[in-house]
């Protein structure tokens, strides 16, 4: 879903340290990285990939479908606007600490252009055995991910990989893994992706890793409750014990905060249960619940 082995990938900020190590991993995984952009570095090559001054030039020569933006926070608004204006329709933004006004501007421009945004603070995505954007799974991607019927969406990059690994160890493969970030404002959300997984032929069950803070889980529960999707959903919501701490504390991710009554894991889990999702009490329970859901979907032998 979203990408496959034929997706042509552009890397903005290709000469940076993180960009280079993640690009190496994308190439190792068989992803088609076709070009890079760094203003003032036209004509250079990084690991055999040609570098251009502007996204426009790179688009003219290589027609990329997606861009990974390894660009520092103060420059991300300009870089993303450039990609959107040049016609790129999938942007992966791993950058953290982006000013919220800039995120909002990027999302509004992307929305008007019909472009999809992963992140900010996304660790990218993986279609096991086909392609990955970003370096999720590090050097162990072949061991962690394995093709199969489960879509995985996570607000946390680390836990997303952890959950795919747990599934793989239990003999359950993944259709697509997506790291969406955990910011106050973000591009593709749980709700958007649940609908996309519903339409994705390769997916039978979707797993969500949610967190304390924001209303993204409640929005996702609403998609399930309203029967906009029919495929089973398994969820884990982290931060359950954070409710014992004073509200207003922010836990790592910019969106991981309880404000008043908003953002409580207990409320989120309740909303999921009410909608009929299977709620895991620890991550290790996820493969068991996924197996249950898969079993229920098996066609009956008549």
């Amino acid at each position, binding site marked *: 879903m979203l990408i496959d082995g034929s997706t042509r990938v552009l890397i903005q900020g290709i000469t940076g340290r*993180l960009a280079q*190590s*993640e690009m190496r991993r994308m190439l190792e995984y068989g992803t088609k990285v076709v070009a890079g952009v760094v203003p003032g570095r036209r004509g250079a090559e990084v690991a055999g990939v040609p570098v251009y001054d502007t996204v426009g030039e790179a688009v003219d020569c290589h027609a990329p479908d997606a861009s990974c933006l390894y660009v*520092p*926070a*103060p420059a991300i608004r300009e870089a993303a606007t450039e990609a959107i204006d040049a016609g790129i329709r999938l942007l992966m933004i791993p950058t*953290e600490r*982006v*000013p*919220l*006004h*800039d995120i*909002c*501007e990027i999302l*509004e*421009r992307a*929305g008007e252009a019909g472009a999809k945004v992963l992140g900010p603070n996304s*660790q990218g995505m993986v279609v096991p055995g086909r392609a990955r954007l970003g*370096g*999720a*799974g*590090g050097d*162990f991607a072949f061991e*962690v991910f394995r093709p199969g019927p489960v879509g995985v969406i*996570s*607000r*946390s*990059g*680390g*836990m*997303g*990989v*952890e959950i795919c*690994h*747990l599934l793989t160890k239990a003999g359950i493969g993944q259709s697509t893994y997506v790291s969406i970030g955990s910011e*106050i*404002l*973000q591009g593709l959300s749980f709700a958007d992706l649940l609908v996309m997984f519903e339409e994705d032929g390769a997916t039978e069950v979707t797993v969500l*890793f949610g*967190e*304390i803070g924001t*209303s*993204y889980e409640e929005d996702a529960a609403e998609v399930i409750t309203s029967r906009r999707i029919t495929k089973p959903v398994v969820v*884990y919501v*982290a*931060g*359950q*014990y954070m409710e014992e701490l*004073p509200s*207003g*504390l*922010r*836990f*790592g*991710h*910019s969106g*991981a905060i309880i404000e008043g009554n908003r953002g409580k894991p207990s409320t989120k889990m309740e909303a999921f249960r009410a909608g009929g999702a299977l709620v895991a009490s*620890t*991550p*290790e329970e996820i493969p068991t619940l996924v197996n249950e859901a898969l079993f229920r979907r098996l066609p009956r032998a008549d």
Partner: protein
Amino acid sequence: MPVPSGSVARNPAEASRIAADLGVPVVVKALVPASRRGKAGGVLFAEEPQEAGRRAEHLLGRDLLGHQVRAVLVEERVGALQELFFSVAFDGKARRPVILASGQGGVDVESHVQQGGMRCLVSSVLSGPNANDLKVLWHSEGVLPSLLDETVAVSLKAWEVFRRYDLLLLEANPILVTRTGRVIVAAAIMQADEEALYRQPRLQPLVDRGADRRLGPLTERERLVAEADRADPYRGAAKFIELRGGDTAFLVSGGGGSLTCYDLLRRFGARPANYMDLSPGFSREKLAALTQAALTVPGVRGALVGGAIKSNMAVDLFIEVLIEVMNELGLDPERFPVVARVAGVGEARALALAAGVPGLEAYGRDTSLEDACRRLADRLFPRT
């Protein structure tokens, strides 16, 4: 924006003098960075200068909404025909700034919000709210037609402030509509975006960084980490929050992995004494500051290190720095149990380093977070 005339006093005599200069009944407001000051008793009225002094005396030095009152604002009391509420903040579902407005502002606006009595206007962040939409909105909230233009002008000004200063929230309440046809912002709350402070020189000295938490002033250890973080702003973000009554140093990084480990430790009976976060690209100094801070929180008797599988930060440095800091502090892992779950990049080296230190238990990606947390709890609370 149009505001009541007045100025800031740091002692009662100053407050009386300001009131005398104004020559009208005044309001004395405690200057603390919190909302709901009126409800909390931080906004008082005075008819004449002596009374203003007494009000200031009453407020100064007091603890209000978690902050000590060090100054008060003495300003003219403006009689109002109507009190308005106007706020701008971001909405995650709309992915846009959303304006909330009401013709019934003032101290009781909260209950009004809960009754759903707010007008809501989703705006374009790029082009801002439409003046005509605001006019219709304020008209429906009972603002007199003759004052609509002025009210819209003040609203647009508030929007401009929201945008220019990169605010997460701007809340003007109350905006007073006076008998003489003036529209005056009598109080406002601004919430700054720490991530945008680098380009907001006017806000920098006003914002207590690292304090995106409401537990009062930073502790010594929290300040240490905040300083290390600020010294090198683009090499990873280090955050450290001390929690009360904990027994476990929590050296776990990665937002979701940390939340999960926190839950698991609590499930098994241990209690983290801190919360932390460290993002990729971090410097060794930041990690050392965090390690030192976590291991020295009073009451700590063991540590959990590492977290979920790391794809883009090396875990071996966690073990290297941990061993170094434990040596410096004279902590012996045989008596101060440490369990590390170091998975992902640098895993093999991390495990090899830990193997050389008796009592330092380290596990890789094949051991689950759950098993690692259970193991630490077992060592902290051995069954007799």
